[in-house]
């Protein structure tokens, strides 16, 4: 992998890029510490901080565009974090700036949207504080120039995600979902932490520059281990198999959170990690192959789950899993796939955020109803939402010339190139996507009205619809812009390298045409079942397959029987052992120390004469000891 040198001592906007992290962090601090006093204007401050970060990101981006390819990797030194081990700094390169633009851009839109969405919530200020905290942590994750910085951001977004999923903590389901997300992520984070430890012991550094320079020279076994550990971390954060189970439950959080964190940005952190660590994965082909397997398995699993969900947000969450599976697959293909992974990540950030916010708009109108069986025929009452949602829908299924068409097709073509089996599985996934997304579209906006009697749907306020419009514009044009002429691939090349020969765009290849055909078939089936036919208000029992998908492919059952129950047994045994043996020892020790303490306390009797006596004895001891030492 040929990448450009990292240049020290950046100036201008890039030199000030730490502001991107500092501004939202400051916002979070002010809102959390300021308490109720900031209630009145807290949301405005939150938006301002996010927009400020966006401005810095744009300025840095413009400055970068003015530089030669060879000078586009700029290091910003900040401070010595752990002397002798970690120098905290930022790495502003095409990869990180792409993420920074996505995070701050989509993040700001979602901040604005939330002003409207959360307007009736008494805790709106706290919500914005957490959103700001998330933006700061996510930016640290992608901008840091070393794995420790990335890890701090990684944990930071995990914390923000936990706080926001459980934002309505009075609902037991939200509290449980937050805990579940936290615990499942713990598994992945633990893997990442051990991976970073291994990197440190193997390479003697945790900074990207020095590590990647010598990545190829390490022992193959160690490299594979590092790769798999990093992948485990990526699986946790990006809800990839086998750590996917938390994402569907995470939809308990407010919808803007689902859009920002659990669709557009945080869940793509795993993809970032794999692409950023490309040098390691390319040197460890086994680990790289496992990445593609995980990607393909997840893209199919997510798509199947998406087919059977009646909860609009859960259906979208299944689709998020599936789309990230595509990105993971591309990230595992090496330099030929990186640009497509990132391109799909960016376009997905737009069209998925677009659809989530659209779903939020629908829920806002329908008294927070999420069951699509109670929607239907909403097109006529909320046109802006329906049209923007429809654009997102067309983009995700890969309707020709829309964003998803270019980026997903790129991934399928490169997968074909590397391994046809993976490629055809990805094609199958695209077909299923055509079905389940059409199902969501038709059940929500078309067909008969199946509303609850007290529902009076109406279009959402402008503060909510304007972000929808902006996002849908991105959903239309971004894909073509990034892919045609290999624009993104050439832009990213200094950071992640580029394949020997650039891929062309082949609209009429066999896989491309098959994909389109399958998508059309999927959409047609969906129309027949959910558009034209009557949709029952209560879900029918369905076949074995439907149940399988409805139960998230028995992911939870698997976790429960494989990990939770044995875990509980293990805990019980451990508790038993702890009570009998360890506690005996510890309590004995504690009692011993406590007893000593109690006895020594008696010396502290409050009489100044006793104290003076103890000083005298002490002095005598010191004198005696010094004299004794002197004679040795």
């Amino acid at each position, binding site marked *: 992998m040929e990448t450009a040198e990292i240049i020290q001592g950046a100036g201008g906007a890039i030199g000030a890029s730490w502001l991107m992290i500092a501004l939202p962090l400051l916002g979070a601090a002010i809102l959390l510490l300021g*308490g109720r006093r900031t209630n009145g204007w807290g949301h405005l401050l939150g938006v301002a901080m996010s927009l400020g970060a966006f401005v810095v990101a744009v300025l840095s981006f413009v400055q970068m565009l003015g530089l030669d390819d060879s000078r586009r990797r700029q290091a910003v030194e900040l*401070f*010595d*974090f752990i*002397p002798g081990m970690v120098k905290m700094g930022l790495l502003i390169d095409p990869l990180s700036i792409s993420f920074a633009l996505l995070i701050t851009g989509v993040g700001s839109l979602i901040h604005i949207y939330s002003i409207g969405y959360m307007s009736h919530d008494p805790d709106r200020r706290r919500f914005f504080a957490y959103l700001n905290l998330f933006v700061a942590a996510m930016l640290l994750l992608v901008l840091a120039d070393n794995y420790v910085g990335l890890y701090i951001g990684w944990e930071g977004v995990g914390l923000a995600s936990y706080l926001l999923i459980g934002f309505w903590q009075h609902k037991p389901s939200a509290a449980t979902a937050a805990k579940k997300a936290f615990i499942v992520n713990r598994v992945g984070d633990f893997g990442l932490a051990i991976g970073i430890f291994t990197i440190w012991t193997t390479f003697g550094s945790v900074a990207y520059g020095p590590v990647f320079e010598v990545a190829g020279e390490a022992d193959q076994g160690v490299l594979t281990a590092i790769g798999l550990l990093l992948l485990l971390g990526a699986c946790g954060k990006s809800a990839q198999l086998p750590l996917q189970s938390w994402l569907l439950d995470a939809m308990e959080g407010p919808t803007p959170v689902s859009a920002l964190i659990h669709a557009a940005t945080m869940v793509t952190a795993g993809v970032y990690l794999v692409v950023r660590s490309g040098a390691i994965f390319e040197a460890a082909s086994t680990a790289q192959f496992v990445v593609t397997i995980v990607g393909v398995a997840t893209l199919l699993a997510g798509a199947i789950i998406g087919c059977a969900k009646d909860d609009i947000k859960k259906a979208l969450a299944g689709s998020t899993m599936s789309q990230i599976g595509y990105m993971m697959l591309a990230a595992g293909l090496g330099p030929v796939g990186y640009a497509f992974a990132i391109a799909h990540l960016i376009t997905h950030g737009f069209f998925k955020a677009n659809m989530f916010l659209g779903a939020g708009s629908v829920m806002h109108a329908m008294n927070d109803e999420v069951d699509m069986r109670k929607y239907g025929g909403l097109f006529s009452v909320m046109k802006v939402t329906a049209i923007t949602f429809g654009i997102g829908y067309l983009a995700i299924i890969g309707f020709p010339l829309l964003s998803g068409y270019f980026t997903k097709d790129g991934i399928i073509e490169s997968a074909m190139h590397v391994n046809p089996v993976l490629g055809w599985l990805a094609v199958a996934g695209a077909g299923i996507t055509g079905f389940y997304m059409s199902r969501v579209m038709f059940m929500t906006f078309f067909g008969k009205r199946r509303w609850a009697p007290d529902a009076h749907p109406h279009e959402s306020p402008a503060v909510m619809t304007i972000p929808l419009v902006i996002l849908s514009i991105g959903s239309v044009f971004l894909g073509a812009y990034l892919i045609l002429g290999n624009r993104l691939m050439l832009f990213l090349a200094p950071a992640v390298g580029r394949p020997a020969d650039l891929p062309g765009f082949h609209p009429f290849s066999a896989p491309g045409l098959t994909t389109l055909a399958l998508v059309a078939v999927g959409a047609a089936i969906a129309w027949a079942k959910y558009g034209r036919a009557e949709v029952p208000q209560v879900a029918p029992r369905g076949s074995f397959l439907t149940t399988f998908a409805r139960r998230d492919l028995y992911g939870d059952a698997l976790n429960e029987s494989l990990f939770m129950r044995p875990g509980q047994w293990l805990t019980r045994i451990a508790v038993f052992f702890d009570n009998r043996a360890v506690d005996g020892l510890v309590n004995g020790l*504690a009692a011993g*120390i*406590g007893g*000593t*303490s*109690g006895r*020594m*306390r008696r*010396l*502290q009797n*409050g009489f*100044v004469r*006793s*104290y*003076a006596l*103890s*000083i005298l*004895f*002490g*002095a005598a*001891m*010191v*004198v005696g*000891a*010094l*004299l004794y*030492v*002197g004679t040795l």
Partner: protein
Amino acid sequence: MNDIAAPTIEYGQLAPMLLVFGAAVLGVLVEAFAPRYLRRSIHIPLTLAALVGSFALVLVQVFVSGVPTSPAAMGAVAVDGPTLFLWGVIAALAFVSVLLINDEDNFVAQAAAVPGSADEEDAEIAGFSQTEVYPLVLFAVGGMLLFTASNDLLIMFVALEVMSLPLYLLCGLARRRRLLSQEAAVKYFLLGAFSSAFFLFGMAMVYGFAGSVGLSDINAALPNVGGQEPLLVLGTALLGVGLLFKIGAAPFQAWKPDVYQGAPTPITALMASGTLVAAFGALLRVFWVALGNFDWDWRPVMWGVAILTMVAGAILAITQTDIKRMLAYSSIAHAGFLLTGVIATGAAEQNRDALSGILFYLLVYGITTVGAFAIVTMVRDAGGEAGHLSRWAGLGKRSPMLAGVFAFFLLAFAGIPLTSGFFGKYAVFSAAVAGGVLPLVLVGVVSSAIAAFFYVRVIVLMFFSDPAADGPTVVGPSVGTASVVAVAAAATVVLGVFPEPMLDLADKAASALFVR
């Protein structure tokens, strides 16, 4: 006829100290001449301005005029890197302590009135307040500044007394629990006088050995021990006793819990931070500057003292039921950790790291301590501060913010990463390991573990116990108290996340030594 040469005094170098003393003298004049109702409003700006000015003058010396390169005042005062660092620390700590002291509710209306008497009641009703507090504090702070800078045992003794005498008085001025407060003052006075006698006696011995009280002269005299060894050994031991008493090392620690508990809490904060800093400064001067080459003799004994101090502090704290006493024992344990660093300075190669570690530790411990005591002043019930730990149960449910900050301070004391306490311990212990005192560091780490137990116990008590029905109320803090807590919390975070600039500064200070 003998000419008596007038001594040369480098006023520029001594300015930070002279400013404080000058303000103290002015404060006395204010007491004498200003009408009662005006005094407080004169004292507070005067005191704060003196401390800010002193701090600014330190900065001027560090960044503008440069650290001096030779002792001042005919070799009696050494204004070198460590001195300037500690001066800055003391001035800053004194400043925040004065913000606490400013909260008038902590001090007695008329100290001379017998507790519970009609006189006392009259004084309260008349709204008197004992404004002598401010000049007394300034004198004590001036003494602290001189104590760390003394390059001469005699000056050091004078400084010791200038620092201690006002503190003895201040300890007796608590508004509530008058008897406890007066008892603390008398105890502190008696024991302090007792230990001063040791110091003075040790000084006489050392003079007998070296023929001088100048620290550099003593250092120079060390190689020619010939036959005078017992004098030197006895002198070293007795000087040590005097100084170890001030830092509260075992077995000279007995005064600390009683005095800390009885004294008005703002004064406790000043003693636990400023006095500790000053005493360690003086300890380093004597044992490193003067007696550094004698370390083969004093190090083993200091080992024993350090171990005893760490263990005793940590173990005794466990069974404490009063928050201030617990913090006092914690301060004893921390003195032990710092002693580990002092011992490590003896090893010639590593001394600079150990010295800078101690300087940094003193700063972070001092500021966290003031913050912790500031919070203690805010938790009150009908009888004043709610000192008993059982009264703190469930505080986290009633005042989550306050309890959270206090928990954060406790974690900093315990040395949890991302708090300043972690880097303080790390700096001292890593320097100590490099200095070859690994066993001592192991004892330190085990004591830290024991200490963590009682810190966490308070956190558990605050957050996981049900609040008592008639529990204490958290008073809305005055602006001064609130800013003290905020500053201390901010410093604890910042120095825990970005310790580097301050560590660098401590390192530079440690290398800008001109003696030895």
